[in-house]
């Protein structure tokens, strides 16, 4: 989520970007592939011209010879030079394979594209037909049709085209169905565009690339299959020849002379691998556009002296930073977050997409994605410093003291494991609780979250529950350990408002009953204000304001917080007033510019804001702001502020 939201601004030139994505051809694999394909092309053209004569010249005096200086691979039963035959067979092997692939692709793609265009009943019939044809292995179908069409090169090409058409049809059908289901296709249909235009303008450009890819791979398989048919005697017939026939003839004398059998085999493998690698490189080039490059981050800031430990703090973090390598360079989604949670406190972490709130949570829980790295000045959980304890101790403390609840209850459970297993496995692994006792505990927790069903529920699997039920189970599972801290990352975003209210009620109860601290992460500022004791507002990877939740509506001092609050449509606000908005775009994810991340959008900016980044400093009791010119504390609505600013 974080990465996708960054892509628009990431495409702008930014100083953090150091290396452009490399084209697939420049990799060693690309070079090798190009060399192999080039040599095949040269042989296909030059082979027949240079050695075609020699390949057909019989020599009765040198029949079935082994390798000699004259005949490097020996001669066949008519005394023809096998090396010349092998080389001049290149185009005889490649051309039919390419022809069969193109024929099959044309037929298959037409069939598959038809499914996207025709009406419901015809589409289902076509789909069933494709399914039926796909049930048979291509080689068997090819053999059947080769026998039917009569042995010979033409028959084999036709048979192979028939055999590989269903595969193309299926790929086309799948790809076209994917495109047909998109919103932009629906929009085009609502515009009343005609069918051929839909196909040419919207469907084909999207499926062309993967189709090219599969055609390449199919050409390799076709070459192998054609050789196989010739090998069986169903393909090319003497006196013509290709690699498969040469292999077959060589195999008859493999007991005495292995080379005549091995050489055509190597040729077939060489060509097959060349096509395979071509597919690989093409797919890699397509995939590289989305795959990040791991990159070394220039050294993080030296750690500052941490604050002294406080007894009633569950978690204390100072100057947390996270760097994340992406395709466009290293981004810095979290740039110095400082926060502390007291026992039993519910703190909201609120921010828009790209503010770094989710990565902050993952960094706190030591669950950052591969490649991302976190640094900090202080990181103290349950009174123990992260630096001063071993990795194992730290893991143990996190395991028993911290639990997480994730945004999407549909994907946060292992779909194939029973609910009971997933609820009890942590307790059993870390506390060594026997199974029966763990199950009893799970039942107690399920009752607490008001889920009926007891043991039957424990035996069910996640897909049998609704979204709200799953989130309840997630809360029950999180409380199994009686953790000191629960990090809830947008736990209600995927749910309906009425269910959201139930879940919030449960979180409140967990916090009240177990004195658990809760870090509640959300983009919904109204929800956070409603549910939490304290609110941390994040912007551009830093906490810009830390204030009591009840002051959020009117007492915010940071310009960003004020504007954010004012822009929330409220059920009780005056409808005829325009909603104030925040001009400008999201902050630069590379975070290279000095100064306050908000200064370019801030109506109250000072000269200092562009040069020096403000630090979070206390303003009043329980109120901290990171701003060089905090707004006056007079409780007046942010709405007036921004209107003035706009004038």
């Amino acid at each position, binding site marked *: 989520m974080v990465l996708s*939201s960054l*892509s*628009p*601004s990431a495409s702008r030139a930014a100083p953090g970007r150091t290396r452009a994505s490399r084209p697939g051809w420049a990799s060693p694999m690309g070079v090798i592939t190009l060399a192999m394909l080039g040599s095949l092309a040269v042989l296909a053209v030059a082979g027949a011209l240079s050695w075609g004569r020699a390949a057909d010249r019989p020599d009765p005096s040198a029949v079935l010879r082994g390798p000699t200086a004259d005949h490097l691979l020996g001669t066949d039963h008519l005394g023809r030079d096998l090396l010349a035959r092998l080389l001049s067979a290149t185009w005889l092997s490649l051309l039919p394979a390419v022809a069969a692939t193109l024929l099959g692709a044309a037929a298959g793609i037409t069939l598959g594209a038809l499914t996207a265009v025709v009406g419901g009943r015809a589409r289902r019939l076509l789909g069933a037909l494709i399914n039926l044809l796909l049930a048979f292995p291509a080689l068997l179908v090819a053999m059947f049709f080769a026998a039917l069409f009569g042995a010979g090169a033409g028959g084999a090409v036709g048979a192979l085209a028939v055999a590989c058409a269903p595969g193309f049809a299926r790929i086309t059908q799948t790809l076209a169905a994917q495109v047909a289901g*998109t*919103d*932009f296709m*629906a*929009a*085009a*249909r*609502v*515009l*009343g*565009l005609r*069918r051929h235009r839909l196909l040419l*303008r*919207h469907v084909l*450009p999207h499926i062309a690339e993967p189709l090219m890819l599969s055609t390449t791979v199919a050409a390799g398989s076709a070459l192998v299959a054609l050789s196989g048919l010739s090998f069986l005697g169903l393909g090319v017939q003497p006196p013509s020849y290709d690699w498969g026939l040469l292999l077959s003839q060589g195999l008859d004398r493999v007991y005495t002379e292995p080379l005549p059998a091995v050489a055509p085999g190597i040729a077939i493998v060489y060509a097959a691998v060349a096509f395979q690698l071509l597919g690989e490189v093409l797919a890699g080039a397509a995939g590289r556009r989305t795959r990040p490059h791991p990159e070394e981050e220039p050294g993080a800031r030296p750690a500052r002296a941490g604050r002294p430990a406080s007894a009633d703090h569950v978690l204390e973090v100072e100057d947390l930073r996270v760097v994340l390598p992406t395709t466009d360079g290293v981004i810095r989604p979290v740039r110095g977050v400082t926060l502390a949670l007291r026992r039993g406190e519910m703190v909201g972490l609120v921010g*828009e997409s790209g503010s770094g709130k989710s990565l902050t949570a993952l960094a706190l829980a030591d669950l950052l994605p591969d490649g991302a790295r976190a640094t900090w000045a202080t990181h103290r959980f349950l009174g123990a410093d992260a630096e001063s304890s071993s990795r194992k101790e730290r893991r143990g403390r996190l395991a028993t003291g911290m639990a997480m609840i994730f945004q999407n209850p549909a994907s946060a459970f292992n779909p194939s494991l029973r609910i009971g297993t997933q609820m009890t496995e942590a307790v059993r692994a870390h506390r060594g609780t026997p199974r029966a006792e763990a199950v009893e505990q799970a039942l107690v927790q399920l009752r607490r979250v008001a889920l009926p069903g007891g043991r039957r529920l424990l035996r069910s699997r996640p897909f049998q529950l*609704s*979204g*709200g*039920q799953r989130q309840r189970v997630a809360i029950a599972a999180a409380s199994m350990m009686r953790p000191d801290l629960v990090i809830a990352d947008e736990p209600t975003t995927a749910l*309906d*408002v*009425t*269910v959201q*209210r*139930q879940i919030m*009620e449960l979180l409140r109860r967990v916090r009240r009953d177990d004195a658990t601290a809760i870090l509640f992460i959300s*983009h*919904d*500022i*109204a*929800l956070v*204000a*409603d*549910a939490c004791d304290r609110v941390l507002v994040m912007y551009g990877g830093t906490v810009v304001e830390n204030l009591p*939740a*009840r002051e959020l*509506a009117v007492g915010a001092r940071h310009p960003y917080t004020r*504007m*954010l*609050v004012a*822009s*929330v*449509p*409220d*059920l*009780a606000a005056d*409808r*005829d007033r*325009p*909603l*104030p*908005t*925040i001009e400008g775009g999201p902050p630069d994810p590379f975070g290279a510019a000095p100064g306050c991340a908000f200064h370019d959008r801030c109506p109250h900016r000072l000269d200092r804001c562009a040069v020096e980044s403000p630090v979070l400093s206390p303003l009043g009791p329980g109120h901290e702001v990171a701003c060089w010119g905090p707004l006056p504390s007079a409780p*007046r*609505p942010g709405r007036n502020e921004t209107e003035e600013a706009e004038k």
Partner: protein
Amino acid sequence: MKEGTGLALYDVTVRHDGPFGPVTAVDGVSLEVPRGTTVGLVGESGSGKSTLARAVVGLDSPCAGRITVGGREYRGRRAADRRRLGQQVQLVFQDPDTALDPRMTVRQSLAEAAGAFVRLERRSREQRIGGLLELVGLDAGCAGRLPRQLSGGQRQRVAVARALAVGPAVLVADEITSALDVSVRAALLTMLRDLQRRMGFAMLFISHDLAAVRHVSDVVAVMYLGRIVETAPTESLLRGPRHPYTRTLLSAVPSLHAGRRPAGEPLLAGEAPDPASPPTGCRFHPRCPVGPNHRPGRDVCANRDPHQDAAAQPHRTACHFPSRADDRPPHAGGVHQDANGGPTPRTPGEPPS
């Protein structure tokens, strides 16, 4: 209901093929959106509001009922029928990431829409595109960009521009703000209201976000499991919701301003049932706080379908035991009246203007 005004739906029913047989996603919905006004359609997931949107623009075909635009019915599945409908009704989608063809620049997308029904010369096309971009508050420099080079809010503006390019009589906005950040959302809502004032199209604004709906709508309709349970002018609905579902829905909306939170509305139990097998009678009765599960003797809810009040009434509800208008509303005190209304009650947190 008067014919000839904007969009009108009469007893529209839409069925899908679900994995276990047909699912009635929209069940006998009647709704009117006069020209120049906005009707907000509110409902939770599975209530059928997106299916309704697709039916209105012709992506799904209703199996019963009539949909008219400007008094005319557009039936038929042929391309020509679809084109005639497309000239009248346009749709803006929820997800700005997928609503635009990722391979087409903004200019190409808009040109395609602008040229869908009228042939445009190169120069007038450029002018039209410039005008459309200006309309949605984007600068002309955006025209050459691909969707992935735009932010979510900008993409959604382009999607609105594309929909308005054909000059439709009806605009259907399906959850267009739910994928956006708060600050961007406000700007888009304000823009939509302005555009409507200037262009006078009828708008069906679909959302699960009551606050957003309230901000743009003149009339709000609440959907539950394929049916409309309550329809009323916006302020009337917010001030005096009569259907128990509307009341619980309103009370579940979190508010920034502590103290305005309604007290006493009970927590709704469970979740909306599967639309494939809806409950008998009133579809809300198993969860209803004033239904047979809480008030013995109200068996009528489980047995008989409540029908909406007569169409002539401004505030209609489909409930056997609706709350009376003078019952304590969930958001008492916090609701301003319409511009032409009387003096507005104020909350303590707000200063006089």
